[in-house]
């Protein structure tokens, strides 16, 4: 399998994640879209690592996974608190900083 396929898959996944983030309205789904984008990036990173015969890309992926885990913990906690406050998690209603 040529590495190009992995890059194309990664690109497709990232675009889908972005699109989902932009069109979806509840925070959980948007959150999942972010996870998809992160993993698309991970995939591209590993493919590049293989292509260039270097471990650097894989090391970065470990960092990304760690950050994603931490982000999931904090992000979900925030969403939970928002739910407690507003009894919903619609992202367009979170607009306290509206100018």
């Amino acid at each position: 399998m040529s590495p190009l396929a992995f890059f194309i898959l990664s690109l497709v996944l990232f675009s889908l994640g972005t699109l989902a983030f932009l069109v979806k309205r509840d925070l959980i789904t948007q959150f999942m879209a972010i996870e998809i984008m992160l993993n698309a990036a991970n995939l591209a990173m590993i493919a590049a690592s293989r292509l260039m015969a270097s471990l650097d890309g894989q090391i970065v992926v470990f960092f990304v996974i760690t950050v994603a885990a931490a982000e999931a913990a904090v992000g979900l906690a925030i969403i939970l608190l928002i739910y407690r406050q507003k009894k919903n998690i619609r992202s367009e209603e979170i607009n306290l900083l509206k100018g």
Partner: protein
Amino acid sequence: MSEYFWLIPLFPAASTFILVIFGRWLPKKYVSFQAPLAVLLSFIFGLAAFFKISRPGLEHEVASLSQTLFPWIHSGNFQIDFTLRFDPLTAVMVLVVTGVGFIIHVYSIGYMAEDRSYTRYFALLNLFTFAMLLLVMAGNMVLMFVGWEGVGLCSYLLIGFWFEKPAAASAGKKAFIVNRIGDAAFLLGLFFLIFNLKTASFPEINQALLEGKISPALATLIALLFFVGATGKSAQIPLYVWLPDAMEGPTPVSALIHAATMVTAGVYMVSRLNLLYSYSGVAADVVAVIGALTAFYAGTIALTQFDIKRVLAYSTISQIGYMFLGCGVGAYAAGMFHLYTHAFFKSLLFLAAGSVMHALSGELDMRRMGGLKKYLPITYPTFLIGAITIAGVPFFSGFFSKDAILTHCYAQGKYFLWLLGLCGAIITAFYMFRLIFLTFHGEERFSAEVRHHLHESPAVMTIPLIVLAFFSIVAGYIGLPVVFGHGLNLFDHFLEPVLKGAAEAHLSLRTEWLLIIISSLIALAGIGLAYLFYQKSPHLPHLLASKFPDLYRLLYNKYYVDEIYEAAFVNPLVKGSEAVYYNFDLPVINGAVNGSARTMNFFGRILSLIQTGLIRDYALIFILGVAIILGLVVF
């Protein structure tokens, strides 16, 4: 001891410092001890310095002490040091300020005993003494200006001492503002002087004048600017209006500041710069004319007033007019001599008036007095001595000094000013005895309530009166006129070294005698008239008042000068300020400030449209941004 003469002003300064910082914890007894003591110490050191410079053998050189405490303003060639000087002119002023000042401090212990702000009062009185001593001991004009402003400040603080009384507060403000007008001119004069002579120290100014370094026209300008300052501080036409109002302050303050010392600062300044005034000539004439006019004019106002302190205030203005008249005709020594005797009898009169007020529970209106003679056995004779002295009855001190001024005036050929002075003298004698008769003689016009509280003042107040009365009588004998023999005028002789600009007076003995007899008769005539008007036939004043109602109203309302100033200066200023406020400040200045804020607000509002509060939008912008940057990097 005399080498420590520079300590003279520092005693009251230290006392003020202590009273201001620790005053609230100090017991009243201690305050009454410390404040007069500080002035007494200054007096003692002043005496020591006086004996040092007046010792025989120094007569023909300028006997003076000088001490530079520290360098003050050094800028290139121009130098001003913090220099204190002690020469004969200073000696007279220092001894008057501290001597009379000490007596008034003692009197204040009794007069202010019941006041809540006892400590503040003495702190201010000491501060005033310090400022005045700085003024008279300054070795240059700039340092003198510090003292000059200092006494103005103390005057403001002491006139407004009872600041919870609106009249006192506004009188204080008036004094301050009117003084400031004069001070602005003084400062201008100072700038001209420094700019042209590159120095401000008195010996160097005199040196420059002797060498003729500046043109007479410039000297005239500088001298006149200084004199405007003097009219403010010394309450002469046209800036005298603050002094009568200053009577809102405590009476001992009126005695110390507004009679004996501060208001004489202008006379001192003119005498100090006697070379400048004589060099200019025109300026000296202006001083003489203003002095004579004031002496006469203020006297006429005093004729119709009923407030006991206001009569004294106008008489102060009038007497200072005499001093300026003396200085203006070149008789600086005579002017200073009158300053010196005036300090005694005017503070005596004020303190005695304070004693009368004290006895009558604060009554000031002479229409509600009368017949106090038998109730006030010490105040009455001392007041009478003061009145006799100021009226110019022969052989009292006021007679010698006023006569010296009038004689010089005549000798210089200024017959019109001499006549004005004589008219002023008869008026003075008249209104002083009008005051005596209205207050102490005749029927009792006060209420039974007041009579119940009527009492002579305590010894701490009456003893100063007696001391001052004594000096009012004898103080004149150190400056006897020439008719009693040559060389008897020790005062003139003592001041001779500093008064180089003085004019010579040559009159035959017969003329001198004639002048003395004329002024004696004038004084007695004034007293006689007062007796006729207020004792013999009391209906006469009413008759005159109803016969010349316009004149009477004019005098009673003080020539409407306050009203004229109000209309001519105060109102236009207020109106002008309002016009500027509404037409410039509000639209232009406020407009610019608010406009810039509004512009920022406007742009901020436009920019804030981007902040929709929707995460989606932010994400979209973010992605677009990334896309643009990527595009730039790749292509």
